[in-house]
Each structure stands twice: as C-alpha cells, then as structure tokens.
C-alpha cells in the first residue's frame, strides 16, 4: 500500500512519514532534507508519533492528497502543495511540543558558529525577517524556534522549511514561483537554498538577541539592557512552565552572554541588512 516510508528525527523526536505515491515521497524527502539533517536535540518524551501522508487516488479528485497524523485526518482532500505545508506544520507542532529542552518563539540566523535570535510572538513577522536575513547573506537556523540544550546552553539549529505568506513574498520582493512550495490556500514553504543561503550545520553559541517590531514606522536600532532579552525569551517560550528554574537560569545565561538590541522597522530588507552588520 505504501510506496515509500521514511523515518525522521526532529529535536530528538522520531517520526515516520508514509506516502502512497513515490513522487510525493520524493517531494517530502527533498523538502525535509536539511530539516532532518540538523543535529538532534535532547531526547524527547514522545518517541514515535506516526505521520502519514496519503494520496487519495479517486478519479473524482485526481492529484489530491489527504494528510493523516496518528490515523487522524488533519485536513481536506487538497493539492499536494497545501498538504506539504500542513505536513510541515504538523511535524513542527509535535517536535516542539515534545522537545525536552528550552524552546522559545524566534527566528534564528547565524554568522559562523554564532547565532542571532529574533524573538517574537507567533504572527509577529519572524519568518519574513528571517528570510530577509538569508537574502542579506546570513545562514539559516530557524524561522520558528530558538532551541537550547539545557545541559550546556548551546543553540540547536531547527531549520524547518520557512513558512511564508503571499504578503511576505511581496515585502521581500521574492517571486511567488521562486520558493519550493508556492503559496496556495496555505502558506508557501521556502528552503534556504531557494534564497541561496546555507543552513547552520552544527550547534551554535548565542551572540545577539534582536527584539523587533514591524509596522508602519521608521527604522531604529538601539542596544538595550540584557534583562529585556530575558523577559522576551521567557514571554515567548513554548515550554518554560515545564522547566521551571532550569528555564529561568537558561534564559538568564542566554541574555547575559548576548548583546541585546531593540529594533523597529517597516522594510524587512533594511532590518536584515542592519542585523547582518551587527558588530
């Protein structure tokens, strides 16, 4: 019944992805290649949730796919591109929920083995700003989460495919067909390679935290107190309440070892250039 089955590991959580079509399995493999190649995080509690991507091969709806997770249908019969976006979102949700280390909402870009974190709330423009940073020459670690190993405070790259809306592509001046999975009813998905960027190959040390606000406002960048990063890392955290004092001490250590900046911007490309030029 299954044309292809692959086993993935994200942040220490194992997944199985099955497809009824070899062509779709190839698309999944290609899309997730750099994501699953990232160094593993600390072992997670959930070991093997099952994600199935299944082709619905009816004559009435050719080229439509239905996505299942743990035997539960996650969406309607839909075009493969939409299902791929849904698949990545689903993998992401489970991987982050299962992660036993510290994780906070943030884009993460890199220079060498140093990370620049861009914490922001969900929907706060992380993916757009992160993508702009890749176009400005930085390497990619995540558009979703700053993941930290509690044992040593290092940043673990979490390079999921970048979720972008049509509005993001417009702001970034990126052609809609230039990304791996185009925008449909769902977000599109860009790979760093689509933008000519590299993926961080290994663990990183946090160097800068940029607290940004996007809007119809002028560009400003100023260095601020480290305690502002401390507050942001905990405010936007996925799981600090599970880690208690460990999260508190990790956030304090990360804020202390970083330079912290507050930035307002209306053009992500201007903001990204400034981030690329941080001292």
């Amino acid at each position, binding site marked *: 019944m299954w044309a292809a089955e692959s086993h993935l590991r994200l942040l220490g959580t194992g997944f199985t992805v099955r497809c009824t079509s070899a062509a779709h399995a190839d698309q999944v493999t290609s899309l997730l290649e750099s994501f699953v190649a990232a160094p593993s995080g600390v072992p997670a509690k959930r070991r093997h949730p099952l994600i199935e991507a299944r082709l619905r091969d009816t004559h009435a709806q050719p080229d439509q796919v239905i996505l299942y997770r743990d035997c539960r249908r996650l969406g309607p019969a839909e075009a493969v591109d939409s299902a791929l976006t849904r698949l990545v979102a689903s993998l992401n949700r489970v991987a982050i929920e299962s992660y036993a280390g510290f994780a906070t909402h943030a884009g993460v870009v890199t220079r060498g083995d140093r990370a620049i974190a861009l914490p922001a709330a969900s929907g706060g423009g992380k993916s757009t700003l992160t993508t702009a940073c890749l176009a400005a020459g930085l390497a990619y670690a995540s558009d979703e989460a700053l993941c930290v190993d509690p044992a040593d405070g290092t940043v673990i790259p979490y390079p999921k495919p970048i979720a972008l809306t049509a509005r993001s592509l417009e702001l970034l001046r990126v052609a809609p067909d230039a990304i791996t999975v185009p925008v449909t009813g769902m977000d599109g998905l860009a790979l760093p390679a689509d933008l000519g960027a590299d993926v961080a190959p290994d663990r990183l040390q946090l160097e800068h935290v940029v607290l940004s606000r996007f809007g119809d406002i002028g560009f400003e960048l100023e260095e601020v107190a480290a305690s502002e990063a401390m507050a942001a890392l905990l405010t936007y955290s996925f799981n600090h309440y599970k880690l208690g004092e460990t999260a508190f001490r990790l956030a*304090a250590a990360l804020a202390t070892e970083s330079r912290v900046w507050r930035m307002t911007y209306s053009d992500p490309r201007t903001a990204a250039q400034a981030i690329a030029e941080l001292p």
Partner: protein
Amino acid sequence: MDVRRRVGPAPAHVIETEVKDDISLFDARRNQVLVLNATASDIWRLCDGEQTVDEIVELLASAYGVPADDIRDEVTATLERLIEEEFLTP
C-alpha cells in the same frame, strides 16, 4: 505604605540571578518570573531586612543625586508590587 517598616529579605522560595547589571527573580513555589529594570534592581538590593522604606528612598536619592521626594512614589510603588507578587514577605 508605612515608610518606617523594614523590608526584606526575600523568602527562601525566591531565587535571584544577575542578568548583567539587572536582577531577575524566580518564585520556585509558583513558577513565576519577575524581570527587574535597573532602578527596581537597585531597590531590590537594599531589601535586606535592615533598611526601612524611608532609608531605602534616602540611600537611592543620594546615589542618584536627586531629591528623595522625586523618587519616593516610584520606590514605594515598586516595593508594594514586590510584596503583592510575593517576592517579598508582607
């Protein structure tokens, strides 16, 4: 707030850490964090159970080179919040 009362020290379940020049507090009992700015950090450092509210105001006014009356409201408001959020005992 009674300006003659002594404030602090922090109860045992409150853990403090320095984030560069500022202090952050963790209430291990309630799993809550309070990130203090520079002024609040200075106030916190003086909450040792020895100083009264009035003495804290005077010490900070002297350190900042401003009249005590200029900072009294901010200091007492900060102390009231620390007590209200149980980072200091009432």
